[in-house]
């Protein structure tokens, strides 16, 4: 029975990562993607390029709990009203981040895919990537706001934007697909009598549940990362004791050590076998 359970668990361990990754496959392969280098465009922040961090590099201090990063897009350069837009955002953040949301043009992104990596400074960081897509309306906001919520950290650590890729998609065929995806298609747009509730409590509940699940999953990742670091620190702290213990046992002659060992082994084996 135990063997069967082990085989099933191992099989799932092999399959689950593929399932997870297949659901987060990029949908931008069919689009003409332009890369907008954050550092080279006219943003409101300083255009420092430090290591892997493009754009403004923030130094995070322990007393900050919620941090709003605001990137001002110059919309007249990129989008006009009616454009179908997509943004692909990549951030480098410390391992201790908890919630990360981005808002652009009234559209909110709440889910990110994250990869743990190491920046050129040797720090373990998360590379977060997420997508926002929508249609430019007259009430389009011109700023991209990224909100990060971070746990307290013992020392300052950098975080910043690595890359922002935007897609301006005015190709008629692709726009048609986008319109279909938005619900204009006769089949997908038909709700068969279903009417959305007046209040969006259900949607809010689902979103809250999703955020909670992501939050506790992230907390596991954070704990895992801090566990490795803490263990290494404990092992480093233990090293000075080795010299002390060696000196203590160094006073005892070898013959005493062997006699004690033999005596303990004799007594234990006698006790075990004698029962």
């Amino acid at each position, binding site marked *: 029975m135990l063997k069967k359970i082990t085989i099933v668990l191992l099989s799932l361990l092999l399959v689950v990562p593929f399932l997870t990754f297949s659901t987060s496959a990029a949908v931008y392969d069919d689009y003409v993607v332009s890369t907008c280098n954050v550092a080279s465009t006219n943003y409101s922040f300083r255009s420092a390029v430090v290591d892997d961090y493009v754009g403004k590099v923030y130094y995070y201090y322990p007393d900050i709990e919620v941090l709003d990063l605001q990137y001002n897009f110059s919309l007249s350069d990129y989008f006009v009203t009616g454009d179908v837009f997509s943004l692909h955002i990549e951030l480098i953040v410390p391992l201790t981040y908890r919630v990360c949301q981005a808002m652009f043009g009234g559209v909110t992104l709440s889910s990110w895919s994250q990869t743990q990596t190491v920046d050129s400074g040797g720090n373990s960081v998360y590379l977060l990537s997420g997508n926002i897509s929508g249609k430019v309306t007259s009430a389009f906001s011109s700023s991209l706001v990224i909100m990060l919520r971070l746990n307290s950290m013992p020392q300052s650590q950098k975080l910043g934007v690595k890359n922002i890729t935007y897609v301006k998609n005015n190709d008629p065929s692709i726009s048609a697909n986008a319109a279909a995806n938005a619900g204009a298609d006769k089949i997908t747009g*038909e709700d068969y009598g279903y009417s959305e509730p007046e209040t969006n409590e259900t949607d809010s509940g689902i979103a809250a549940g999703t955020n909670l699940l992501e939050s506790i999953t992230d907390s596991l990742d954070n704990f895992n990362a801090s566990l490795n670091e803490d263990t290494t620190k404990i092992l480093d702290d233990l090293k000075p004791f*080795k010299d002390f213990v060696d000196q203590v046992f160094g006073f005892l002659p070898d013959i005493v050590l062997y006699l004690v060992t033999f005596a303990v082994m004799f007594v234990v084996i006698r006790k075990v076998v004698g029962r």
Partner: protein
Amino acid sequence: MKGIFNAVVTFFATIIGIVEFVFKALILLFNLLYQGLRILLSVIGFLPTPFIIGATGLIVVCILYKILGRENQS
């Protein structure tokens, strides 16, 4: 239909998220055990060599005795 599709997608995304969480928790538990063993082995490494050899021998002898004892019963 779009609402139904969204519900189905959300449902399976949640299921996958829960499975991901469970396996991450399992991996965390194994990691916890592994890190505990690292610390334990490092502390054991402080002891003199005769003690380590003796303790290892005792463990082997006790396990063998236990196994052989069970085989005699069956």
